[in-house]
């Protein structure tokens, strides 16, 4: 039996592979931004601006876990809006900002559980369920706040996103990094994360090994809801006011970031690290375009183009050079997909 260590080089290649697109996009964007304007490469400012994206970052962390199972949650942005509305109403009814924040996270988690219930217990496809709750939760937020806004949050809370940790890292970025480490630990170091990955690869075979799929998928949806609640707290601190049209269209950007990070949309493959890298790649692209006064829609188009190329380029490359490489590798291993009935 040949020595397994000889293959670590191959597995290292495999390890870096999924992160390549995100890293390339990040570097290209940083270089492009620096060339485009002298004001761009100002790390403290860039870090400050990244605070705006940390709500999307939190949503992307939980969405990675949901997609690893082979599910999807399109309702995260509407969930965020309704949780923020609850935060505002609870605060207005006299509760402290801390109680209101906890209420927002609790509400978010409950909405996430409702998604999970419909998908795992009733057995509906997650794409259609969360398409429904995307509209349902946004409507609930609109009913809760109507055309009014909730303002008058305490000073310490509003603008909290401006304080720096160790004079460099803005608070929201720190919160995001902490959550990324926690969810990363859950996804890659615990049995829960391992089972999620295996369920994504083959749910029946994993069940035959004695592991229950319902509980794992339900927890993933609940976590996605909790992150929406948490993000609601962040956005309220950043804006200092709450309206029902918050976070419109966030869900599409979140899915783009998760897929850019190397997670397979059909489940079974994906890392939190990849998602974090992809988030910073998207921030770099946005900042590089913003410094050149490129308006919002063109920025979204560039991100959409990057998403499409992330998947198309490897396929094209493997198709062009693959023909030789693949056939030789197969001959080497003497493998041919046999029909083992």
């Amino acid at each position, binding site marked *: *039996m*040949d020595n*397994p260590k*000889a*293959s670590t080089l*191959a*597995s290292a290649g*495999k390890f870096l592979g999924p992160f390549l697109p995100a890293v390339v996009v990040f570097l290209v964007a940083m270089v492009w931004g620096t060339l485009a304007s002298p004001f761009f490469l100002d790390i403290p400012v860039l870090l400050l601006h990244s605070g705006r994206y940390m709500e999307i970052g939190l949503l992307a962390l939980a969405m990675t876990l949901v997609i690893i199972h082979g599910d999807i949650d399109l309702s995260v942005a509407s969930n965020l809006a309704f949780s923020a509305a609850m935060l505002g109403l609870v605060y207005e009814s006299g509760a402290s900002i801390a109680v209101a924040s906890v209420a927002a996270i609790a509400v978010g988690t409950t909405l996430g559980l409702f998604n999970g219930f419909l998908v795992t217990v009733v057995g509906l496809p997650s794409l259609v369920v969360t398409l429904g709750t995307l509209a349902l939760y946004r409507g609930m937020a609109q009913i809760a706040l109507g055309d009014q806004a909730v303002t008058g949050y305490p000073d310490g809370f509003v603008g909290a996103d401006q304080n720096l940790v160790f004079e460099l890292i803005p608070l929201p970025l720190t919160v995001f990094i902490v959550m990324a480490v926690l969810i990363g630990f859950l996804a890659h*170091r*615990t*049995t*829960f994360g*391992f*089972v999620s*990955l*295996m369920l994504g*690869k*083959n749910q*029946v*075979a*994993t*069940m*035959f*090994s*004695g*592991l*229950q799929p319902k509980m794992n998928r339900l927890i993933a949806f609940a976590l996605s809801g909790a992150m929406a609640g948490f993000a609601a707290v962040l956005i309220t601190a950043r804006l200092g006011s709450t309206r029902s049209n918050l976070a419109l269209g966030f869900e599409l950007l979140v899915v783009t970031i998760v897929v850019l990070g190397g997670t397979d949309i059909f489940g*079974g493959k994906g890392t939190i690290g990849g998602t974090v890298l992809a988030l910073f790649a998207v921030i770099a692209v946005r900042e590089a375009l913003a410094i050149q006064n490129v308006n919002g829609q063109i920025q979204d188009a560039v991100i959409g183009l990057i998403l499409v190329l992330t998947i198309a380029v490897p396929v094209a490359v493997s198709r062009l050079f693959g023909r030789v490489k693949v056939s030789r590798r197969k001959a080497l*291993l*003497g*493998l*041919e997909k*046999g*029909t*083992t*009935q």
Partner: protein
Amino acid sequence: MTVSLRCEGVSKWFGESKVLDSVDFSVEPGEIHALLGENGAGKSTLMKICSGLYRPDRGFVEVEGQKQAFGSVMDAQASGVALIHQEPRLFPDLNVMENIWIDFRGKSRGFSLKSVEKQTQDYLDELGCGVNLRERMADISVADQQLIDVASALRKDLKVLIVDEPTASLTPLEVDRLFAVLRRLKKQGVAIVFIGHRLSEILEISDRMTVLRDGQVVGSIRADQTTEDELASMMVGRNIDVADSEPYVSRGSKVLEVHNLSATGKFRDVSLEVGSGEIVGVGGLVGSGRSELLEAIFGVRKKSSGAVFINGVRIGNVLGSIKAGSGLVPEDRGRNGLVLKATLVENIILPSLRTLSLFGVRRRKRELALAEKMISELRVRTSSFGLEAGALSGGNQQKLSLAKWLAHDLNLLLIDEPTRGVDIGSKSEIHTLIRKLAARGVGVLVVSSDMRELLSLPHRILVMREGELVGSLPASEATEETVIKLASGVKVA
């Protein structure tokens, strides 16, 4: 009179294992030629080559004298060869008419489903299939689906009809109806290849028989010149190269007790016991409910009544049975047994996650150590641990699915077709493994359609037929004839 279908010197390899070894086989028009052999003998592969699904590595296939280079199933169909699968692959959302006429290639002007409705109804009446043309395919029984598959083949001037294991899930009534159809097609000059297991059925329907064993033609005889016993022995072959297990010495304790277990539509009122260190074999034909029995005992299939005890502990669900130390190696390795897209290590540690982790946190070193131990102990040949299970050969995959259960303290091993699609080398390794487990006191319940394996490996053999336990005999008294007769329902002499 030219031969309808001829294979000459056809050979085929899958990875290292040679599945077909220069096979010659031919069928005349108006003849029913049966193809026999145990599982893994290469029957289905040969027929897949004739029906254009695979290309032969060596040799060629001729239809009515013309050499065929089948690029695709469509070319085979164009040349008049049709294959009816055991589970016909049809379109559940479409109705009967649509399923039959979906690949209509003629000029489409003037053609509409209405215009051929009468013609289709005649086909079906002729085939004795009383199905309403508007019914959705999802609502139709397997027996009727087969006839519809035949009807869609009849539409294109059919020369050769290959029927693969058609009677497996049919009731006797439906088998008679199918045979009537085959006889009618025979009269119309269609050459028919019948792949089957039930010797009595084969003798009843076919004119000539060819027996395949380990990819080679063992013999070709006319139906009226042979008997079931001769056929059985040809299938099994004299030199049983599998060593017999030593007689079972009871250790008193019962590892598995099953009391009148049943699952609607699959099996009824099964009671059995497996002692510690005892290997109990379960014989029977495809579709007799053996796999479903194992799944119900293990807990992944709902049981409608009855009880299962492992080491005296009553089992409720799969979690309970695994905690009680049981493990299932299912029949379909690719779909249920292993996660093909996951690595070797991931597959091995999957059932033992709880023991390998601390408060839910994985301990990578401990996992790697266990995996290394299992891979070396079961001699799984692999270039690296990072390799995906799907890239392994059949034999290594089976060892892997055993390894994952041996990784945690096993009391009861449920194993379904242990050596199907496995190369000869791995076959004996797996048998010695199972015997070593039994020696350590593990109870083994093994389902097998490989006659030699069934007769030699277990201490005691049970036989199931159409969902019922019909016989139990110690290995010493069992012979292939008695087992085959019990399995196929022929009155025991």
